[in-house]
């Protein structure tokens, strides 16, 4: 069975001789050839060179050709902040406006054409990759999900709009979904076997809002992707546990989750709908900061935790951080493709916990002079859910000024991890006020957050 056939079988929820493996190597791919993320994302030759190296080194059954949720946003007028060590982030929101202004629904004539932005460059790369390895490796084209694109265009106002102006949210999501239809078309035409709709912000909304705003556009989008002969995948980051079932009902072939979701629980739900599930090797604690054995052990333990691995795909939790040591990804690959050998190799391995929690000095929460808002994030520059959680907190800080204190912590910074552990942060992103967890994996509206702060003043 060819690697891609193995993956297709898993996507169809059929049993496979081994569990397929996909490292979601986005900007990280640049590092394999010594380029910056920006060079990789803006240059066709470098993109092709790096992706072929990912294929050679990590031997994926499915290769992710592009993982940049800012491609559409850039075309539609968001300013981007480029980075050497990660994908760009959105720095401005063209549809942001004052509360007393009517928000704008963009004209359909602005839906990106195949010639817009970086689409031509990406599609040319995809065609070259298809030509080079498409016979054996399945190819993934990742597009930005409508909710995340709407957030890029409208800023954190979108979370307020969901309460105040549902008609506008429907209209804007409809526009963003039309963009997604087109992006899927371009990538399928360029040879992608699987279209993954990546919408990290799905984890930050309630199931009621999912059913009200998201279910219909996603169902139509997946129907469209399938009608064009491609597989349809639904990617989410963050704690989307509450929404896994409604995600399954949208008709996708597979769902991909990160370590915030208990994959055993999620798989049981997915199995009911014959939807396959991919995940969820932890990106920072294991892949970025762990050893090769940690990575091998995580994958083997995950495989061993299932009685039946039908419909399972071993994958990184989300877009791989730039600095992951190559041997860690190779360790995951070995464990996924040769679990029996690796199980033997690591049978006596005990992971070291070298975090000294006593060295972490937490604020004296009981005796604060003013309210303290703390955002615990994966990394606001690269994780969209974190970006908008921090944006909400930034707005509150702007509103309250010196009347409150405010800190942001990043899990990608190793020195900050002990603080997360000592606080017992259950999911990322989370907002704490005066040391108490107030918003876990749900981005509060401006009113909700301001009320929560006022309550402790």
């Amino acid at each position: 069975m060819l690697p891609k056939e193995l993956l297709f079988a898993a996507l169809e929820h059929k049993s496979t001789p081994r569990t397929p493996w996909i490292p979601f190597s986005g900007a990280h791919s640049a590092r394999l050839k010594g380029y910056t993320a920006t060079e990789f994302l803006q240059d066709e030759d470098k993109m092709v060179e790096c992706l072929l190296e990912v294929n050679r080194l990590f031997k994926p059954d499915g290769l992710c050709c592009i993982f940049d949720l800012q491609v559409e946003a850039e075309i539609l007028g968001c300013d981007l902040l480029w980075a050497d060590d990660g994908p760009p982030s959105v720095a401005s929101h063209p549809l942001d406006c004052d509360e007393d202004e009517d928000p704008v629904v963009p004209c359909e004539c602005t839906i990106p054409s195949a010639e817009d932005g970086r689409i031509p460059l990406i599609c040319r790369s995809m065609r070259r990759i298809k030509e080079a390895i498409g016979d054996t490796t399945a190819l993934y084209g990742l597009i930005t999900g409508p909710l995340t694109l709407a957030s890029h265009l409208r800023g954190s106002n979108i979370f307020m709009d969901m309460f105040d102006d549902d008609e506008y949210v429907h209209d804007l999501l409809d526009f963003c979904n039309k963009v997604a239809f087109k992006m899927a078309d371009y990538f399928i035409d360029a040879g992608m076997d699987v279209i993954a709709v990546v919408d990290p912000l799905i984890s930050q909304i309630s199931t009621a809002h999912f059913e009200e705003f998201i279910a219909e556009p996603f169902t139509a989008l997946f129907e469209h992707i399938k009608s064009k002969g491609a597989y349809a995948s639904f990617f989410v980051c963050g704690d989307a546990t509450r929404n896994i079932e409604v995600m399954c009902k949208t008709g996708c072939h597979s769902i991909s989750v990160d370590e915030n979701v208990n994959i055993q629980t999620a798989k049981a739900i997915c199995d009911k709908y014959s939807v396959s599930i991919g995940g969820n090797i932890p990106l920072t604690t294991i892949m970025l900061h762990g050893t090769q054995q940690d990575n091998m052990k995580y994958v083997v333990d995950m495989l061993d935790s299932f009685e039946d691995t039908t419909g399972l795909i071993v994958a990184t939790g989300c877009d791989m951080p730039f600095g992951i040591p190559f041997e860690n990804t190779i360790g995951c690959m070995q464990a996924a493709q040769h679990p029996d050998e690796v199980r033997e190799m690591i049978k006596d391995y005990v992971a070291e916990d070298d975090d000294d929690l006593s060295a972490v000095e937490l604020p004296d929460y009981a005796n604060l002079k003013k309210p303290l808002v703390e955002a615990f994030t994966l990394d606001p520059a690269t994780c969209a859910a974190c970006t908008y959680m921090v944006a909400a907190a930034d707005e509150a800080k702007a509103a309250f000024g010196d009347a409150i204190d405010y800190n942001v912590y990043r899990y990608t910074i190793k020195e900050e991890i002990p603080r997360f552990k000592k606080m017992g942060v259950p999911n990322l992103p989370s907002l704490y006020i005066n040391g108490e967890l107030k918003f876990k994996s749900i981005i509060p509206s401006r009113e909700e957050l301001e009320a929560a702060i006022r309550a402790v003043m």
Partner: protein
Amino acid sequence: MTKLYLITGFLGSGKTTFLHKLVRLFPDRRLAIVVNEFGKVGVDGVLLSDLEAELIEINNGSIFCSCRLEQFEEGIASLLTLDEPPELIFVEASGLSDPTAVRSILAQSGKFASLDYAGAICLIDAARFQKVYQTARVCRMQLAVADLVLINKCDLAAPQQLAEIRDTAEAQKPGRPVRETSFGRIEREWISEMERPLPADGPAEIHTRDITLQKLTIQLSGFDLNSVEAFLKMFAGDTYRVKGVLSLPEGVYLADCVGPLVELRPFALTGISPAPELDRLTVLFGNGLPAKKSIRTAIPLFPGRSVSIL
């Protein structure tokens, strides 16, 4: 071969006036004009109907957007297949259009074989340039495709402003001809300075969209010259452009506002066919300009008059 010149420039940069002067440079040539407006009510076509040229109007969207592109291509094709095709075509693009695709559209193989794209002339409103360049994304795109930059309305700008515009234009495309003018004045030798456009070397600015652009139409009745001027002044500053032909007790007037500058001038309807729709104003705005709010705020201040936002 038919030569095609594209005329771009943001709203209010003086393209229509310029076109009148440009046409006069070629009294002995067969000419055609394609005029494109973003609003539903076409006004420029009316203003150009007195010229000795074949005229095609494409309104309600940019000719470079998918929504009007087909109409544009059909228009060009119809001109090229006339028994006596024009020797020169001037295309006046909407002030809100992003013309970066012009070359790829006109270079489609086999589609316009007898057409020679001679380049783009970009008009700049000297006094307003810095403001619109910062706020309107398309302004950047229009300048990017230009082969000749005409800094217009120099009489209204300070020398420092002109120097800044030259610096911006030079930084974007070094060596490109830049000329200063007023009232859309153009000389034939400036046209000949335009080099034949070459494919961009090096990484071109990527093609993006401006999703903030908006247009609305307002219908007025019961106003006289004074009150309509006062009404326009209440919100024109929050728009890029307001345009339309008004039938007032004092006579027929053309309302033509560029940003906060409100202009109302007598307008002769005789001989203009088809007659423009009267008392309708097209309002163009974007990028957070609170035009709708300002219009709504202004309406109650004019009791006895009727204003409806269509």
